[in-house]
């Protein structure tokens, strides 16, 4: 592709390409018909998850092969070296078309793991893995949290012990989404228990089909299973699948976590919009308090979108985004709670008992799923610590006992 198209030109090109490969989404879904799911976490069986993943993967491959995936990446990885914010411009166009909704494993693979691999991977690893990850031939999940290492991720106890040409991994990971469909897991492991906790960590890329890897779904409070436990029993990982230097794993993990924060700014917006539609269509007049509550949710969602525009705008100007990039996830979880609160007020008993009416009891999926995002991907409390210490530069909390 010659040169860089201007934003308007690029969006027009994206639109006309999308028209050739995907049907348009109904611009205004008719209220009271169609899918009324507002699930925050899918309640799929393994077969359903696999089927949906295959549909999404097929779409991602089409995108990649026709020059509309990996937009900001170099040509050797199938990209076009466009500025970072062109991805957002593309997504704005894609949202008008009926394409498979990307479940979490896709952004984890493309927006979290691939960029970390680009920073920390060896030339051989980049050649071998980047393109398959971007094309989603390979899907990567995060083997980060453990039962005793949640917010304090650096306390991980999964051990990796050196052998002749590789490493032997033993441990138990938890809260891994997409583990059932992933081909790789990015595992944060302890390689040196004798040094302070942040310096004894190394990250490995683990084949999810390797002998000794066992995946067990966790049933979450929504009733379904979106997360898994992953047991690593004497799993062998060749040294060529170590990501980053030995003992530098904490920095590698931080790279992934920072990308995760950036990627979470759009959370909850679809359901907020749906709740506002409910406020428009409810078959009775809203009282003043309800109107104010609905308008407040509208402002929250608008502001969340504007913050994302400012982040894009900073990237487009070649600047690193400032505080606006870090506040996104806290803003998003607050939007999700405000959505629940509005729906609670508008639906009354129809939220507590299923009358069979369209778009009523279905909101229990949102109500029960939303609390999960206040914990996942760095809890609200950890997000506040990050804002306070890294953005506002407040003094660090004194450390407790232990390393």
């Amino acid at each position, binding site marked *: 592709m010659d040169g860089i198209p201007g*934003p308007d030109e690029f969006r027009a090109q994206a639109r006309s390409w999308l028209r050739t490969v995907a049907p348009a989404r109904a611009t*205004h879904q008719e209220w009271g018909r169609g899918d009324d799911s507002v699930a925050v976490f899918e309640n799929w069986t393994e077969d359903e998850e696999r089927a949906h993943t295959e549909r999404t993967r097929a779409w991602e491959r089409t995108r990649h092969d026709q020059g509309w995936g990996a937009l900001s990446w170099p040509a050797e990885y199938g990209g076009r070296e466009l500025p970072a*914010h062109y991805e*957002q*411009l593309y997504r*704005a166009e894609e949202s008008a078309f009926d394409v498979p909704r990307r479940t979490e494993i896709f952004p984890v693979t493309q927006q979290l793991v691939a960029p970390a691999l680009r920073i920390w991977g060896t030339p051989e690893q980049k050649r071998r893995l980047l393109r398959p990850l971007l094309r989603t031939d390979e899907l990567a999940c995060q083997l980060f949290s453990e039962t005793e290492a949640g917010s304090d991720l650096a306390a991980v106890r999964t051990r990796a012990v050196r052998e002749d040409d590789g490493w032997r991994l033993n441990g138990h990971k938890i809260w891994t989404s997409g583990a059932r469909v992933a081909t790789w897991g990015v595992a944060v492991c302890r390689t040196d228990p004798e040094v302070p906790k942040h310096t004894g960590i190394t990250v490995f890329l683990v084949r999810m089909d390797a002998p000794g890897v066992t995946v067990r779904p966790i049933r979450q409070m929504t009733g379904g299973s979106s997360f898994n436990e992953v047991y690593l029993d004497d799993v062998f990982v060749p040294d060529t699948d170590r990501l980053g230097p030995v003992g530098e794993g904490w920095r590698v993990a931080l790279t992934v976590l920072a990308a995760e924060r950036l990627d979470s700014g759009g959370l909850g917006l679809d359901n907020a919009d749906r709740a*506002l539609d409910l*406020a*428009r*269509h*409810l*078959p*009775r*007049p*809203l009282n*003043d308090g*309800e*109107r*104010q*509550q*609905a*308008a*407040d949710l*509208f*402002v929250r969602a*608008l*502001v*969340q*979108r*504007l*913050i994302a*525009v*400012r982040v*894009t*705008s900073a990237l*487009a*100007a070649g600047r690193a985004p400032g*505080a*606006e990039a870090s*506040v996104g996830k*806290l*803003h998003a979880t*607050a939007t999700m709670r405000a959505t629940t609160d509005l729906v609670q007020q508008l639906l009354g008993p129809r939220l507590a008992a299923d009358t069979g009416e369209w778009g009523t009891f279905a909101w229990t999926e949102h109500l029960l799923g939303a609390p999960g995002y206040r914990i996942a991907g760095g809890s609200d*409390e950890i*997000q*506040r*610590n990050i*804002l*306070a*210490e890294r*953005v*506002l*530069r*407040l*003094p*660090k*909390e*004194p450390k407790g006992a232990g390393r």
Partner: protein
Amino acid sequence: MFRLDADPALLRETEEQRQLRSVLREFLAQTCGPEEVRKQAGSPRGHDEVLWHRLAGEIGVHGLAVPEEYGGAGGTFAELAVAMEETGRVLCPAPLLSTVVLAGHTLLDSGDRRACARWLPGIADGTLTATVAGFPQPGGVTAERGAGGWVLRGGADFVPDGAGADLLLVVARAPDGERLFACEPDPATCERTARRVLDPTRRQALVRFRGAPAEPVGEPQRAPDTVAGVLDAARAALAAEHVGGSAHALDAVLAHVGQRTQFGRPIGSFQAVKHRLADLLVEVEGARSAAAYASACLAGRRTDELPVAASAAAVACTAAYRLATAEYVQLHGGIGFTWEHPAHLYLRRARADEALFGTGDDHRLRLAGLLGLTGRIG
């Protein structure tokens, strides 16, 4: 239905705006420190006239958004918003909101070229102060045509900087409906009483017209639209001010909690304090985004989006300023509750401003109406 389709360039600060911001911040640091602000606010006019002329002449603040043909710089509202944010950050008592935003935009939006040519150059060069009366609620003033021309009768209350302004733009009921009038007040026919105010840096007055001569401004039918547009511009300007004031409060608290020690630790190392400041940062960044969008709608003449953008900015920015000023006092402890500390001046500004063009809840109701968030009626 309202759908945001924002170009990333929309909210980007230009190089000129960045320069203006840094020039103003330095200028105001030298001229509008906390002690100077108190002195200026306590002076007979309620602001420093030398500073007023320097702002107009040296920096050109007053003419930023005034077209060149009327003696201005021909910029947009986005530049003016930078000035409002920076003056709001230090609580500069200069009557920019009344003169430049309210009166300036009323003249411009009225479409009355003769009135613009007569008064806008004075606003742009700082020789004229002006304000509006009868915004947002008209009703108290009537206009009638006498032998010597139009005269005004009745009263308007809560007029910003009303006691000192050289020119009043008044919404009045004329025989043919609501109209705008310009009145250069004369004590013989216009009695002006300064109100005791919550916020000493922004004065208000009761204005009584007793047959005060006035000239109509703009076409008769146009007045309600003009007023509506000016009010939304004023909300966007206040939103920018609130961002500046909130950001100052956050900075001041950060400085304090970093050096204040209790229990052998800086109080800023306690999670109870850190988390509150993180929450305040989230609010301030949200407010900044909403204010930038409202400014961009005015600057880019996105008039369809303006009412929603202005009210959304009012909701986000009044909430942020309420929280920021409450935390400004609270996280300074006892010292923050003293008369000498500037925190209360910001708290006063935050609360008094909400009374001007609508509280957060007023704007939520307005938004619900604009967006159809009303359920099915009837």
